């Protein structure tokens, strides 16, 4: 039996929200390192981050029984004991900062502002730096939040661990970098990725994938080894078994582990090894790795949601009474 009350919209939101946050961080880092280079890649990546998070939020709204009530945020999200409340306001703030950053990164908009607003000529660059830093902070919050939302429900044993926000955060950064990589490959003829930036992104991918493998392994091991004498522990183990060797195993091993972790790791290492080769080969390697990371990151959210079943607390108590 799988968890089906939260369906594909929340799963896709968790992926798009995390990916958008990660993509903004990568774009902002590229901008902060050298604001004279990669202008087009930064601009398109910031727009992609905005659209990604914005579409994710729309998907969440569409999942609500009362979407219009959900849009009235001041009344729909005013109960601050809920992580969803913090997440809604945080994601709203993030999408606003992403959108403003994206507009300011767009050459025609930037030129128009400079022509009509003297202050912007002097302070525009500083404003963009501040927005990049604020956006990074909000992105980090959104990335962590996607996991905290599940963890803090506390009703689902598989999700009731800090390892889940850790896993989703690393995966958010990983898929975000992957999205910027795809964008930089697509825009390769108009805005070529500098060798140092390419190397930086590939090193980041290697680091994040290794980190994600460790967090995922510890997460699964913790759940598989949970105290089976308790209903919650037995259910956590049952959920992890679904992923490890059960009904979800083909998707887990094929799409998350092979496609989402092994392929990006191999391709990033290959990219680093091929640094003296032609750009075409390096682009192909980068694109394959990045697409693999995106597929795996998306599937990870779907599988974690599907395997998140409740513990049969009533059944455990009744069975203890009837023997």
């Amino acid at each position, binding site marked *: 039996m799988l968890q089906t009350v939260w369906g594909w919209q929340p799963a896709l939101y968790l992926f798009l929200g995390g990916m958008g946050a990660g993509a903004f961080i990568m774009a902002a880092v590229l901008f902060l390192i050298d604001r004279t280079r990669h202008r087009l890649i930064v601009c398109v990546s910031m727009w992609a981050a905005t659209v990604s998070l914005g579409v994710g939020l729309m998907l969440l709204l569409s999942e609500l029984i009362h979407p219009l009530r959900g849009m009235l945020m001041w009344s729909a999200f005013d109960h601050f004991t809920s992580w969803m409340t913090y997440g809604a306001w945080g994601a709203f703030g993030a999408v606003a900062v992403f959108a403003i950053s994206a507009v300011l990164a767009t050459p025609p908009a930037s030129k128009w502002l400079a022509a009509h607003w003297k202050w912007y000529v002097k302070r525009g660059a500083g404003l963009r730096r501040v927005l990049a830093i604020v956006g990074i902070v909000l992105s980090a919050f959104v990335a962590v939040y996607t996991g905290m939302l599940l963890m803090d429900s506390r009703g689902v044993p598989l999700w009731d661990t800090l390892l889940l926000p850790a896993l989703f955060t690393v995966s958010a950064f990983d898929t975000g970098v992957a999205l910027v990589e795809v964008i930089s490959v697509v825009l390769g003829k108009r805005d070529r990725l500098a060798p140092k930036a390419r190397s930086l992104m590939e090193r980041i991918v290697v680091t994040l994938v290794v980190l994600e493998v460790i967090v995922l392994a510890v997460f699964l091991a913790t759940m598989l080894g949970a105290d089976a004498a308790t209903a919650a522990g037995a259910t956590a183990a049952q959920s992890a078994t679904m992923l490890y060797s059960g009904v979800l195993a083909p998707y887990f091993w094929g799409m998350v582990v092979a496609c989402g972790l092994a392929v990006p790791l191999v391709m990033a290492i290959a990219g680093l090894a091929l640094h003296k080769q032609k750009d075409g080969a390096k682009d192909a390697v980068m694109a394959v790795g990045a697409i693999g990371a995106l597929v795996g990151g998306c599937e990870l959210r779907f599988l974690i949601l599907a395997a998140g079943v409740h513990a049969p607390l009533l059944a455990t108590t*009744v069975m203890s009474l009837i023997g």
Partner: protein
Amino acid sequence: MGESMLDDMLTRRRLLQGAAFVGASAFIVGAVTLPAPASAEDTQEAQDAPNAKGVQYGFLVDISKCVDCEKCVAACREANGIQEGQPDRRHIQHFTDSRGQDVTVSTSCMHCAEPSCLRVCPAGAIVKGYAGIVSVNKNDCIGCKYCYEACPYDVPRYTPEGMDKCDCCLGAGVAPGDVPNCVRACIFGALEYGPIEELKAKAPDAVLVAEINNPSCLIRNSISYASRG
């Protein structure tokens, strides 16, 4: 006044409230740091606090007396006007004991002392009121279903109006602390309702359905207990 007109007024009022909030600066900071204005529920709760006297009411379910007649489910549906096709608030689950016999258990919301649903509801649509009854204000529920994921007892169900669950028949006009319709309908004495401490004293063999959130539902197997005694 028609329901749709009420809804319109509610929506308009909310829009105006929202506009005022947005017009005022630093809304988010204010919402986080300042004490929230008293809601209608808070006021009602304060007025009725002397009646509640901090007493938590709950259910005592005797699995040895349940015969799966479903009268409790039918009474709940009828009293609360649950329409055809919409989910039950009370559920009967089947188990098999060591002798291969069918055992049935009727449960609904556990009216927990520390309800997860209330904690995670972003809209504050779930309240814990007099007699410890946990109920949903459907005018505030946005239908995010976070309460389902948070409830360890698999209780919340959803209708086009929002989250739906047992409110001890408050919505059906039963006063807090009075016996809900499911218990009245149970002619076999499998269900009892009352202050949870009194129920514990009355049935010392009964156990809480689980530990999480300190639920207000006791389960007992009185025949087995009597035969052991």
